[in-house]
């Protein structure tokens, strides 16, 4: 994919007469969009094969909303990200399905406990930035922390409503997603993702 992106940016630079700085911006925009589309497609496709497309989409939306404000751990290559995204979302939705199958009915309690854990973790560690995307401005850092806490409150309200309406499966998908995302922004979550990234590279997922 990188070779194609390089050629496409070179084409745009030539045709639209872009300066070096503009080329870097356009390349970054293109790389973000392409990797998001590929990873989302792989994750939803994998979810569809497992027969849990809508649950995977729900989990993906929750992760996406939270990661915009609170950041999180990263893989170092788009291919590994696509695989990791698919596996994590399958684990999250699989857990929610398992809870549904064993007749777990304490979703309100699950939501409350998860929201308390999520708020504490986000208050301590959000926003979790990385060397590729550092957050330099302390005012911006504080604003992102506040927005991530607000996002948790909004998600919690929706989950409580879904649980109240009696849809245990989606309430479960919601709070399990919130819990996994929250653990992912802790230093241990970052180490776990870095370990998974290295493991995928070792088994041959190079890009």
């Amino acid at each position: 994919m990188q070779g194609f992106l390089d050629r496409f940016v070179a084409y745009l630079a030539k045709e639209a007469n872009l300066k070096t700085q503009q080329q870097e911006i356009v390349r970054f925009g293109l790389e973000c969009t392409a990797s998001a589309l590929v990873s989302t497609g792989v994750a939803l496709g994998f979810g569809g094969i497992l027969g849990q497309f809508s649950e995977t989409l729900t989990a993906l939306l929750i992760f996406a909303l939270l990661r915009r404000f609170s950041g999180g751990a990263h893989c170092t290559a788009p291919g590994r990200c696509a695989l990791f995204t698919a596996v994590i979302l399958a684990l999250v939705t699989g857990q929610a399905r398992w809870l549904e199958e064993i007749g777990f009915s304490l979703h309100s309690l699950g939501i409350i406990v998860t929201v308390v854990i999520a708020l504490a973790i986000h208050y301590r560690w959000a926003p979790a930035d990385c060397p590729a995307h550092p957050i330099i401005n302390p005012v911006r850092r504080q604003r992102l922390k506040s927005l991530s806490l607000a996002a948790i409150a909004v998600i919690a309200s929706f989950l409580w409503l879904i649980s109240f309406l009696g849809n245990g499966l989606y309430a479960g998908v919601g709070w399990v997603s919130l819990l996994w995302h929250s653990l992912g922004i802790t230093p241990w979550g970052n180490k776990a993702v870095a370990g998974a990234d290295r493991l995928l590279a070792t088994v041959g997922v190079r890009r």
Partner: protein
Amino acid sequence: MKKWKMVLLGSLVTLLSWLASANAASASTVIWYQPQVPEVLRK
């Protein structure tokens, strides 16, 4: 260059620049891969 091609390329560059700014303004990408943010967009 034909006019429609100029408009198309200009729109594409504008859209990609906007997407780059939006991604740089958030804490992270929505998936588990984070491309290197260009110096000029870091804040």
